[in-house]
């Protein structure tokens, strides 16, 4: 019995010693951190810049240390990022693409690449060559980002770099993008591409402030995608591709107004009537992505099917 009691006492004493030792360590560590913080604060307080005379809002001249001056104005980048994230409230942009009219002029492609500083192999919009069955005539299909109302690319972005706006556009903020390419994997429409190389005219536009609504300048190691020309829409103009088309393929407008305007003829028609009268369809509606781009079927395919030099490759 004595033996066991001794053993117990010894373990108790041991643990007490251990506890005191630990407390001492924690205390020392805490003191060291606290002291470091305190001295840093002292240093910040003592730090002095130039004294600057300023005129306050109520008309007094005051002298302020330049260290304590904070700019109230936001820089251009922040302003553009904020308004770019908000979108144009009250709008709900939709695009209608009439496949019966597309003749593979590829003016939409070149206008888009020009506006967004894309290399020739990068596409925000591309005219694809489609042939449904061996016995049916082929046709051309311009394909852009579908600006889904349930965008899988946005859901998977780990850093909130790509986002949905109030007016329905899906944008990408290259200042946040880390280049993980999750969104490329998530997108069922292959609408996104990666900047593997330095973008076109990188040196020329190196000093330009990044515009999130134009995605210019492009940045190596980030994603680039169709923006529905958000910068043009802010100015109240039609997107680059829509106004560049010579064949009247694109209709663009606001679903809240139930009206879309043809980019070529500038004719405005009712969206609901256009869609129902022409049996409009969407790409992969079964995926539940709720695309904002509608296609009118490629009827009247009696035109000669031409392969464009650029698309032959």
């Amino acid at each position: 019995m004595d033996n066991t009691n001794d053993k117990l006492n010894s373990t108790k004493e041991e643990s007490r010693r251990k506890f005191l030792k630990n407390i001492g360590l924690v205390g020392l560590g805490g003191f060291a951190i606290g002291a470091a913080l305190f001295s840093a604060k002292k240093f910040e307080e003592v730090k002095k810049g130039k004294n600057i005379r300023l005129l306050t809002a109520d008309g007094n001249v005051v002298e302020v240390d330049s260290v304590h001056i904070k700019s109230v104005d936001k820089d251009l980048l922040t302003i553009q990022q904020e308004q770019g994230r908000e979108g144009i409230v009250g709008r709900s942009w939709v695009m209608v693409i009439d496949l019966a009219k597309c003749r593979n002029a590829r003016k939409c492609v070149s206008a888009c690449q020009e506006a967004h500083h894309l290399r020739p192999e990068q596409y925000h919009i591309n005219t694809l060559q489609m042939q449904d069955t061996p016995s049916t005539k082929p046709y051309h299909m311009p394909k852009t980002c579908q600006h889904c109302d349930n965008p899988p690319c946005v859901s998977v972005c780990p850093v909130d770099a790509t986002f949905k706006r109030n007016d329905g556009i899906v944008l990408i903020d290259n200042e946040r993008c880390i280049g993980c390419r999750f969104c490329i994997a998530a997108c069922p429409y292959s609408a996104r591409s990666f900047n593997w190389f330095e973008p076109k005219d990188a040196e020329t536009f190196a000093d330009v402030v990044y515009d999130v609504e134009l995605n210019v300048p492009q940045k190596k190691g980030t994603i680039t995608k169709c923006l529905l020309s958000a910068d043009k829409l802010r100015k109240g103009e039609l997107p680059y591709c829509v106004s560049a088309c010579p064949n009247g393929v694109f209709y663009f407008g606001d679903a809240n107004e139930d009206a879309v305007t043809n980019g070529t003829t500038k004719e405005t028609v009712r969206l609901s009537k256009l869609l129902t009268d022409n049996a409009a369809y969407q790409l992969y509606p079964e995926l539940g992505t709720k695309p904002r781009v509608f296609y009118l079927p490629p009827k009247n395919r009696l035109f000669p099917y031409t392969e464009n030099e650029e698309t032959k490759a």
Partner: protein
Amino acid sequence: MRVKNITTPFFLLAFLSISVGLMSQVKPLTDSDKQKVAAFKFTNESQTRGMQQYNNNCKSCHGDPGKKNYSNLDPIPGDPASAEYQALTDGEMFFYITNGKGQLMPMFANAISESQRWDIVAYIRSFNPNYIQAEVQLASDVNLSGALRLKLDVFKEEKRVVALLTDSTDGVQKPIKSATIKLSVKRQFGNLNIGESQTNELGIAIFDFPVDIPGNEEGLLELIAFAGNESKEISVSQLAPLGLTVVPTKLLEQRSWFNINKKAPLWLIISYLSALAAVGGILLYVLLQLKKIKEMNKE
């Protein structure tokens, strides 16, 4: 069980009669509809085009004009070449083709275009040797010089827009007759055409405004009326409470997958947190058990 089944046909019958009754409520014929004339002269070509349209859309009930081989329906469709039909004005004929008539004749407003409907009128008139077409006054012939004035009156209840076109060159306001006025609604990238109408003797053109054009949150929309030809044109715009009230949805305020963490779907937040709690709970339970085992070993 049998007794119960008898009632169903009655309900069906009642439902059918109500729906047929609703369907047959066609638009009433107005004087301006009666006086409407075609915007082109009836020619052999328009009659041929009209014959094709007639054979496709009208022949199955009305038969061949002049042969009285119409279908035996109730009410009898009648022969369009008959005196009864030919007594109608062009405007009336056009109206009935457009909007349907009585309980049987359907409307063709959505099936045949306006010019094709006038072609059918031309074809039916070709069976009347005494017919003389009312003089067609083309919009380009109207003299639109001088001090023009275009005024819009909006009737919200009737969904009707009345345009008044006057000329006040001599200090007196004189109405301009037979001028074409185009009415449209301003949209973001262009003007949506609502309709065209010709002014009558009083310089008045009447537009029936569609009921389903979206406006803003107060139901307001901007009307634009336009009259003109090569020499002169005039347009006027005005806010009118004729639109549907549209409250735009803010996508970023919805709870959804694509939104920020705070706006994630509730079920997602709950299931995520409960999964976390479950894993944590299991770990805690395992640790407690380990502690228990240790204590048991000591004893």
